[in-house]
């Protein structure tokens, strides 16, 4: 049983301008909440205790999925269920629909948002429990020690911190070459999904480029991959609710039995969704078949540095890559 949340001031702005003003006024003490599925756990555990909580669910313009010609715009406050049920996305990007449908449980998908799913913090249990690790501003990593429980941690690009991205929609958006629109001080900027997620080498205290004061408003999925072959698979300890041990997202264009273009990304193996560029390069221009599967399996996890308990992720990654390739046949 957890504690009640610490006491805070709750603000419910009705426009982005008001929200920006509040963020500016409260600075480091401000905390944005939408579905709150990540935030309230932090608050109940009393690990994070911001004094000003800004509920942005009243920002109507950040809801909904719409076709904008070149791209499909998904408001950051669209719930994962809305994405799952959207006929527009089902038709164009079944990969994203599949990924959103594999997040957590129905109740969480009904209130959890796409913005929250990509912006959520890592699930490293040491960090979550309030250990003063690198990510929390301390000077050690508790997950990367000889006796630590680190079966859920990173294989690649660990830099002091070995936490991984927990998002299911993240790898899907990276594969689809989506763009994230971020509002700050009345201006907006666009960041590609691949650059949106950042690793510990860039900033160890953040998972994304979002800083205090930024609001993720929209996700734009270009139609480049609409109608292409798409594949998503997630492996977790439990079929429902649980976070991915490894997930894989792939988009591919196949013509005449040969792969003309492909993008593949894996979640749960690195702090950011990992592009499997060596798999992509061996697939391009080649004939789909058993040989490609074998090769993909062999190179998918190349360069992985396993910790004490997460070796199993290496064959898992290879198998998922091979299954993605098999789906093209």
């Amino acid at each position: 049983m957890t504690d009640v949340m610490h006491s805070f001031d709750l603000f419910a702005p009705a426009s982005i301008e008001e929200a920006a003003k509040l963020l500016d006024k409260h600075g480091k003490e401000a905390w944005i909440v939408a579905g709150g599925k990540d935030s309230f756990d932090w608050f109940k555990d009393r690990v994070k205790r911001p004094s000003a909580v800004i509920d942005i669910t009243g920002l109507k313009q950040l809801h909904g999925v719409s076709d904008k010609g070149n791209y499909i715009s998904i408001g950051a406050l669209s719930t994962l269920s809305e994405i799952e049920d959207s006929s527009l996305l089902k038709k164009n990007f079944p990969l994203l629909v599949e990924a959103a449908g594999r997040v957590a449980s129905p109740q969480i998908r009904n209130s959890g948002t796409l913005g929250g799913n990509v912006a959520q913090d890592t699930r490293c249990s040491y960090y979550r429990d309030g250990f003063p690790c690198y990510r929390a501003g301390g000077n050690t990593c508790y997950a990367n020690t000889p006796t630590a429980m680190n079966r859920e941690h990173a294989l690649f690009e660990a830099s002091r911190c070995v936490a991984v991205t927990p998002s299911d929609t993240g790898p899907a958006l990276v594969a689809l070459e989506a763009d994230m629109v971020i509002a700050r001080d009345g201006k907006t900027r666009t960041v590609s999904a691949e650059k949106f997620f950042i690793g510990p080498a860039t900033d160890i205290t953040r998972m994304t480029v979002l800083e205090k004061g930024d609001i993720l408003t929209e996700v734009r999925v270009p139609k480049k991959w609409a109608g292409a072959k798409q594949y998503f698979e997630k492996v977790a300890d439990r079929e429902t609710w649980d976070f991915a041990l490894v997930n894989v997202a792939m988009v591919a264009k196949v013509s005449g039995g040969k792969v003309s273009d492909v993008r593949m990304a894996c979640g749960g193996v690195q702090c950011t969704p990992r592009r499997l560029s060596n798999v992509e390069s061996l697939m391009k221009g080649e004939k789909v078949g058993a040989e490609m599967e074998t090769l993909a399996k062999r190179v998918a996890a190349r360069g992985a540095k396993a910790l004490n308990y997460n070796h199993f992720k290496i064959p898992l990654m290879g198998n998922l890559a091979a299954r993605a390739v098999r789906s093209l046949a």
Partner: protein
Amino acid sequence: MDMSENWKEDVAESEEFDFPPDPADDFEWVPATKEVAGNMPDLPLETWQSPSTSRREFLRGVVCSGVAVSAASYLWAGNSSEARAAVRGVERLVTLNINGKNRRVDVAPNETLAHTLRYKLGLTGTKIGCNRAECGACTVLADNTTIYSCSTLTHQSRGKKITSVEGVAAPDGTLHPIQQAFIDELGPQCGFCTPGQVVAAVGLLKKNPKPTEDEARRALSGNLCRCGAYDHYLKGVMRASGRA
């Protein structure tokens, strides 16, 4: 032994019992000395009172000022409650639509819907199991979609139609087909997860009146049952499908 008024003396006489000295016996209350006052430079010595009195006074003061503040927010709030919420935070007194009725409740900003339902409105059918969006015992419907009320701020439920397990049956007490089917299929064992299972199943039938077994399994996947009666609940949903 017959307990008389002066039982201490009786015991002492009968068994030659030596009571340990009671420190309160020779306690003499003395006013605060200069050292104490020295720690409170802002207060003149004569205003200092014994802790018990000052605490009572303090509480009375806080309660009064609380009333004054909330009354003031009523008088001068005007019509722009949205603008107020943006600048000065949300109103504490909110109207919630629960089971078809509007209820006025005083809600703290950090209060969860499960807390409000159980401890402010007395709707204890909604259970709090894990209190962190994992087990599903607190499931309620918000505008006909299921949510975990333990991980939703009550303030976020304003303007939504909330249905808890108490609002599932008909007003005349006739059970919802799901409830009847769960009874017929012996769904509940210990019963703690049942309210959540009922609400999740009702939510499914509202969207999809005739679900397949896989769809039903998926819809109930956010509700844990530690007795392991998942198959019973699933059979219940299938029995009720098409009847709601």
